[in-house]
């Protein structure tokens, strides 16, 4: 019989692996599948905690996570790729892929170390460092990638980190559901509206590095 600690450990390992996979993948389609899988794993944890704690909020969050971040946004992102009619590969040089992977592992270790040194005594729950690690991974992806579709995936990873943290050590956090709904609304605005405008106006998913915006 599985215990809550087993589920937290299983999901934690899965989320960490998907985070590292996302950092080292150069094609967009697997990246979209990766973030959908990460969201499903998180929803699994939320669903488990909802059933063991009898929490309606957590059940609602699990449902939102599946619908918005595992299904709707990945679906819209896939449609964006199809609209461009080419197979989008963001990183071409093999050395850059290796560099991203190494940076991701280094960032994960540093984030884990910082958490252990500062907050581990306050949050002794098993796996409590993992949301912090995931947040850093999302920030790293936002900071190092230039493709807007990949940046959306970095944003979704950050959102997953917030939900993960809330589920592990602040499940009674007031307005948590509302906060997540707002983040989802922002995700939809990001993906559905601005990306579409960008495609119509510039015809490319790449950050243009436009001369006028330099400086």
């Amino acid at each position: 019989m599985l215990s809550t600690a087993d589920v937290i450990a299983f999901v934690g390992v899965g989320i960490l692996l998907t985070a590292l996979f996302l950092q080292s993948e150069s094609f967009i389609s697997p990246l979209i599948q990766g973030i959908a899988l990460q969201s499903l794993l998180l929803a699994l944890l939320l669903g488990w905690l909802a059933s063991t704690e009898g929490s309606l909020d957590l059940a609602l969050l699990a449902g939102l996570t599946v619908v918005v971040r595992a299904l709707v946004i990945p679906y819209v992102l896939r449609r964006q790729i199809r609209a461009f009619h080419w197979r989008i590969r963001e990183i071409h040089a093999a050395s850059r892929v290796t560099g991203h992977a190494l940076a991701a592992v280094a960032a994960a270790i540093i984030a884990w170390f910082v958490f252990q040194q500062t907050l581990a005594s306050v949050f002794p729950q098993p796996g409590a460092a993992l949301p912090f690690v995931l947040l850093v991974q999302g920030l790293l992806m936002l900071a190092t990638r230039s493709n807007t579709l990949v940046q959306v995936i970095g944003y979704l990873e950050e959102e997953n980190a917030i939900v993960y943290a809330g589920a592990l050590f602040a499940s009674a956090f007031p307005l948590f559901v509302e906060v997540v709904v707002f983040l989802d609304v922002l995700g939809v605005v990001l993906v559905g509206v601005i990306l579409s405008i960008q495609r119509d106006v510039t015809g490319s998913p790449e950050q243009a590095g436009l001369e006028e915006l330099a400086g």
Partner: protein
Amino acid sequence: MNVLDPLLGLYLVLLAPPASALLALIPYSGASRMAARVGSLVALAAALALLVDGTSGRWGLYLGLDSLSRVFLVMVTSVYATSTWYSEGYLRGVHQPFLTPQLYYALLGAFAFAMVATLVVTDLGLMWIGIEATTVASALLVVLERKPTSVEAAWRYTLIASAGLTIALFALLLIYADTGTLDAFALAATHPALSLPIEMAVALALVGYGTKVGLFPMHTWLPDAHSEAPSPISAMFSGVLLPTALYAFLRVYAILPSPAPAMVTDLLVTFGLATALSGAFLLQRQRSFKRLLAYSSMEVMGIAVVGVALGGVALYGALVLLVTHAFAKSAAFYCAGNVLRSTGTTRVDEVRDLQHLMPRTGGAWVLASFAVTGAPPFGTFLGELLIVMGAIAAGWYWLALLLVLAVLVAFLGVNSQIGRMVFGSSSAKGSVQTRVPEDSAAVAYLNVAIALAVGVASLPYLSDAIRAASSLLGGSPP
């Protein structure tokens, strides 16, 4: 003085912007503009009534007011009202806009509502939602002019601001895990015992909300969004969105006992000074006058954060600076909007001789640029002087010296560029291509006059509220 029941005033200031946003969607010519104007004036009148009334307290679970929120409410609703009035003329000059006027005014109302809501709630979680909602409401306003650069600016704004705000949300998780509440008023009244999570939360909130304030090095969205947004929206970004984000940080900061721990003070001084200096030096090489104004806002925000860190008289100076800057910078952006619509360019070297071509706008722009850069007798001068005096009083002489350096560099950078555009010879290059009615310069003069009044006179009620707000945060007004 009791001019309006405080709860009624609170509902009016909170609900007028969303009501006007909904009414603005009515598809009749002129109805959306009228709805937006009436809504913004009702919100401003309610904010002024609350300022005069002076009642502090809380209503229900989540609504509350104190002197700090009253000061910020007046700032936000004033610039919302002037931007709404200024928008009509500006929108007429935008060719093939991405948004219809109805949608524009609806989003403008939603944007104002998000800021007002941030200011009238007592819960840190709701404040965070309010700040996040400002991003959702304003991102689409940035792309009004449908240019590739404006789309990229909107993208960077949304992504960087949201990434920062997730860090702020982590800060709130830490506060809740440590104290069991997110009630900002209660936490500020009781000051929970200092602990590592609380200090970390304040540091994370500084980074998180600081992204939206435009603190270095998380500022990169700011010059893009300010320069690419339509001018009335740039005015709201610079004048009141940055201070509203700072307000959200101040509510987290207020839970610390006074004086704040040295680690937090050092962090604030470091971020603030780095922002002030980088803003002052980066603006020197800007070719776009809207980016010039954006970097100037960054410099002012940096100085204000240093003022908050120093406490005492400097904190009072920081609030005076924020209030004056809101009026002065919005005036500067209205002038920039007039010039952009007339000349079709934002490049400094393509605009000359505004003193003859657009005398009213040119005059207002010179006054506004003096006001934003801390020239006496504007309120910005008073605010910056008090912050420098606070640094000297605290024995931080090197800090006072570097602050003066930032102020001087920004003063010279902004005024030399604006001066060239207004007084430079027209034989250089560029000219006015479209005659724009200069009536819209009136709102710029109005805001400049308020910035001047804050510096030379003790404005009834507003000055008292700024003093009370300063005391609330542990400052000591002179």
